């Protein structure tokens, strides 16, 4: 049995990342995590009964973040945050200069596509490919059916794959040459 502090230390980064996939405002996500654990400290029995801690914590954060976002009514603040985020992202894309020009182009394209995904799609992509959760687990976190999750992942992947389609048309040799860069 983990203490609340151990749970906190194990899950903080994961929760921060998950929250960040939903709302691109790290301060808000951090505050929401803090609130959540203050609540756990005051209601320690809640964590004791939990079967799947991963799913439970992600689910709690998701719910609380939803209400925290609702509370942030000030649209100007939201707009300012969004701007700041865009600037940050652009510069971080620039910072990560990758050897291959083609790859860099693809990378920028993918980053842009990720930003263009609907928040729901981005979130399921995160849960499926970053957190490696199963459809069952994602369905539970999002409180929807498994099929709905499947469809969301499918659509999101479709949006992220246009570049892949383009690639498939290129001669295999060239791709192979590119691949060797990774090894």
């Amino acid at each position: 049995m983990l203490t609340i502090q151990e749970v906190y230390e194990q899950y903080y980064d994961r929760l921060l990342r998950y929250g960040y996939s939903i709302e691109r405002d790290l301060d808000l996500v951090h505050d929401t995590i803090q609130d959540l654990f203050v609540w756990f400290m005051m209601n320690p029995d809640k964590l004791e009964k939990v079967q799947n801690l991963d799913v439970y914590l992600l689910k709690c954060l998701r719910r609380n973040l939803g209400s925290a976002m609702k509370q942030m009514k000030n649209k100007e603040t939201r707009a300012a945050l969004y701007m700041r985020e865009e600037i940050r992202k652009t510069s971080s894309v620039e910072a990560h200069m990758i050897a291959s020009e083609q790859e860099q182009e693809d990378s920028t394209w993918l980053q842009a596509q990720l930003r263009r995904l609907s928040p729901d799609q981005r979130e399921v992509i995160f849960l499926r490919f970053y957190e490696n959760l199963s459809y069952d687990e994602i369905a539970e976190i999002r409180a929807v059916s498994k099929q709905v999750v499947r469809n969301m992942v499918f659509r999101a992947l479709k949006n992220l794959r246009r570049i892949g389609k383009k690639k498939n048309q290129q001669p295999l040799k060239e791709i192979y040459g590119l691949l060797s860069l990774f090894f």
Partner: protein
Amino acid sequence: MNKPYYSYTLEELASDPYFKEWVLDPTPELEQFWEEFLQKNPQKAPLVQEAQMLIRELNRYFDVGETNPQQLKVYFDEVRQRADREMLRPSKAPTPTANLLIRWSIAASIALLIGIGAWVWLASSPARQLYATEYGEWEEIQLPDGSIVKLNADSELSLADTWEEGTERKVWLKGEAYFEVQKMYETGTKFIVVVEGVSVEVLGTSFNVMNRGEKTEVFLEEGSIRLETAEEEALMVPGDLIAYSSAAKQIVEKRTGVKDYNTTWKDGVLVFKEDTVAQIIRKIEEIYGVEFQIRDDSILNSSTTIRIPMDELDITLPILERTLGRNIQRQDDLLIVE
């Protein structure tokens, strides 16, 4: 999963832990495995590349860095402290029944206090929230404006009704408390502590107010405050100590540049530095609600340095015994120093 890798879809590949590890954190074995796989299944190269790209880009997109363990400890401490404070605070949204109960108990306690007659000051302005400590107990309270009050043993603090921004912040104190007042930069609203016959007005500062018996002492540690009694008023600067007697209805002592005023209780430990045994014993009596009987008066004037806990009499007594070199007999609240 027993499905062979060559029949994997993009989705399956990108969520395969073994594949992900190769992309993000490769080992020689993984390198070898996937290189062989590609040699055997060259038609899979585009898919592999796509999955690699996807994993890498997702990782970049969702990256928030790693929080270092020290930072995590600090964050968690904050959680712990906030939880402690929340638990001290009466529930914010009480249920109707609970609300009624609180109202009744407040009404009852106010009635009782008025009945006693010693609490005229409280009746002059009804206060809703009441915090009280017993002997051997101390509490840290966060006020609605963010100010912190540390309430010493056997003390009471009540809060004004409204704490809306721009309104005067007001608390009533009996006993001893240490205040760290949040400065209101925008509205500049005052913070007022009312003690028997004295009101202390602040903008944002740290100070100690002690009211035991007929004597009230205000010690200013940081910032500046204005002290007001019915007849007098005084501006205090850090290091100032003012004592007021409610019996004489006047300021009875004014000292400046006080460096050794004992506010260590606010951190849970009482530290005495070269204080006389008489002073130490009086403080212990105040905090634990006990009474000392000293067989040998000659020890009272010797001075000593000692640290004792605020809430553990069982630990305090052995420490005291050792320091004084005397045995202490305990009969309930009576402590006999042999």
